[in-house]
């Protein structure tokens, strides 16, 4: 394996900028790595080799001219297949969009191109980002590089696995209930969900519009912070985009890397320790990480968040409700699949046959669940009540952040599980997001950083910060990384 694929994004950018290596060599090394191992991992749905090489050559040409290069110029990046890429296939993991080539770039992708990063291709995901394992991808699951018989997390399992398998140093994910952080946790990589509205949703195929948040995936906290700064910031094309400067996440990560957390208060949520909590191996690794942070000067404070126990039920009313409305656009008229149009059937019949053939089981379940929760007669008891619970969860966060700087928890209750072990009972799958969902309902940022192993499988440590204080979580995450190090999966060769 080429050493170039083992480097951090920071090192790759520096070597290109110094002229030690060309962007094209870096890109070809990653394309070779994909060719060598993606048959086992299946992180990618589409590899855009020609587009990647052209983008790399453009960076090399700019460098030859003496142009100023940005901090990630020439660095390869993999993009979750839920973000539109102009003329490059975009499926959201669904058969209903098979073969679709979007006529425009999402804002996140446009910013990646403007920054001179090299887009390698599109990564696998649970269909329309609904799932925690990639088992609901219409194109088959991604395999966890740590153990190919286990799930890589979801929905962004492809992005996380691509990073862990050294197929890309950076990737883009989207997080609605944990779809960046949980895959990060179970693949031993860093996954960051920015503040909702801190990154643009323009060109992100919508699942739950009040929750969907694009964010960075990387192997180090500093790399994630650099990608965060490139992709974030106000976008007039997204009306929920926050018109404020991007929090100073790179500066915060560098500060954290010094390993000093003197005076930083970490909040431990009392209610996370009760009921359906984390499995013992996860708790042990989490507690070791807490001890390490204490040694760096951090103070642990127990805080109460009495409504967090209702976050999972509230989420599984709000997200399906928004999904049932958003996915109405897949009607077989403007793009994607059309089934059963024999000249006799009505629009409604063709629409129903198209959606039946084009959507997988989890998407159908959530559309029906959302349709139910929004029906007259059930609206107040389900969707309306869930929105009120969302208010109470936000109040819990606000009160907690009066006492502490950040909240911490395990990212997910259990390590990567074997394929097939949670698909027969959908609610068992939902529990994977028990600790990540509260942050989505509140709208603040959260990051997962590797903190150790349990039975040889990675465990993630989650840090949650107040809205638009993303820098705080990067500081703590980088400090933790400096104390416990990064994780290296077993070799995929041979």
């Amino acid at each position, binding site marked *: 394996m080429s050493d170039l694929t083992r480097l951090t994004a920071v090192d790759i950018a520096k070597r290109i900028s110094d002229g030690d290596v060309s962007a094209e060599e870096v890109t070809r090394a990653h394309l070779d790595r994909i060719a060598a191992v993606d048959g086992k991992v299946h992180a990618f749905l589409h590899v855009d080799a020609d587009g990647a090489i052209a983008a790399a050559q453009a960076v090399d040409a700019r460098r030859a001219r003496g142009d100023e290069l940005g901090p990630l110029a020439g660095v390869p990046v993999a993009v979750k297949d839920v973000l539109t890429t102009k003329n490059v296939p975009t499926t959201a993991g669904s058969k209903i969009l098979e073969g679709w080539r979007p006529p425009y770039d999402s804002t996140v992708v446009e910013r990646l191109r403007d920054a001179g990063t090299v887009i390698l291709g599109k990564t696998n995901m649970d269909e329309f980002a609904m799932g925690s394992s990639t088992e609901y991808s219409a194109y088959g699951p991604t395999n966890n590089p740590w153990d190919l018989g286990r799930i890589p997390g979801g929905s962004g399992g492809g992005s996380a696995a691509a990073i862990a398998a050294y197929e890309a140093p950076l990737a883009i994910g989207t997080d609605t209930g944990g779809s960046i952080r949980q895959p990060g946790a179970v693949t031993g990589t860093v996954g960051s969900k920015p503040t909702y509205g801190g990154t643009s949703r323009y060109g992100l195929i919508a699942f739950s519009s009040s929750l969907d948040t694009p964010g960075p995936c990387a192997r180090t906290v500093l790399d994630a912070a650099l990608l965060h700064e490139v992709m974030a910031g106000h976008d007039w094309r997204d009306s929920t985009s926050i018109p404020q400067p991007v929090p100073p996440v790179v500066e915060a990560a560098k500060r954290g890397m010094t390993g000093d957390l003197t005076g930083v208060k970490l909040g431990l949520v009392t209610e996370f320790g009760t009921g359906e909590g984390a499995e013992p191996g996860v708790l042990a690794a989490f507690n070791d990480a807490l001890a390490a942070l204490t040694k760096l000067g951090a103070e642990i404070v127990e805080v109460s968040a009495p409504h967090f126990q209702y976050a999972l039920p509230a989420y599984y009313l709000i997200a399906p409700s928004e999904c049932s409305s958003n996915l109405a656009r897949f*009607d077989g008229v403007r793009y*994607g699949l*059309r089934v059963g149009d024999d000249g006799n059937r*009505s629009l*409604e019949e063709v629409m129903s046959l198209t959606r039946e053939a084009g959507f997988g089981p989890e998407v*159908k*379940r959530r559309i*029906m669940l959302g349709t139910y929760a929004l029906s007259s007669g059930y609206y107040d008891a389900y969707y309306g009540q869930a929105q009120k619970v*969302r208010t109470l969860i936000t109040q819990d966060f606000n009160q907690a952040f009066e006492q502490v700087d950040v909240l911490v928890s395990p990212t997910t209750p259990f390590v990567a599980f074997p394929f097939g072990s949670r698909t027969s009972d959908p609610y068992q799958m939902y529990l994977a997001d028990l600790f990540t969902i509260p942050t989505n309902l*509140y709208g603040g940022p959260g990051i997962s950083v590797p903190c150790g192993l349990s039975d040889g499988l990675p465990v993630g440590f989650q840090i949650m910060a107040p809205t638009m204080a993303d820098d705080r979580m990067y500081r703590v995450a980088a400090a933790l990384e400096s104390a416990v190090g990064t994780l290296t999966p077993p070799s995929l060769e041979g």
Partner: protein
Amino acid sequence: MAAISRDEVAHLARLSRLAVTEQELDTFAGQLDVILQAVARVGEVAAAEIPPTSHSVPLTNVLREDVVINCLTREEALAGAPDVEADRFRVPRILDEEA
């Protein structure tokens, strides 16, 4: 007691424009019942006086300058359509045939 019946699921499938099979109805009825019983826990919270949150960003009436910008061409907009006729999206019939 079940939170949702097989007939209700069939009704939901029709509202959702999903031509589900009889076998899917059996599976989904059981699964949706388990999920609904779990999410019904939100009803335990005393929240009568609590305002609902639809969104975490406190922005309203987000407008932009009223200036013309580039948009998709007709060819680009139609490029991904399953069926096109006379530079328009062609759809299956939307009305019953007249007697």
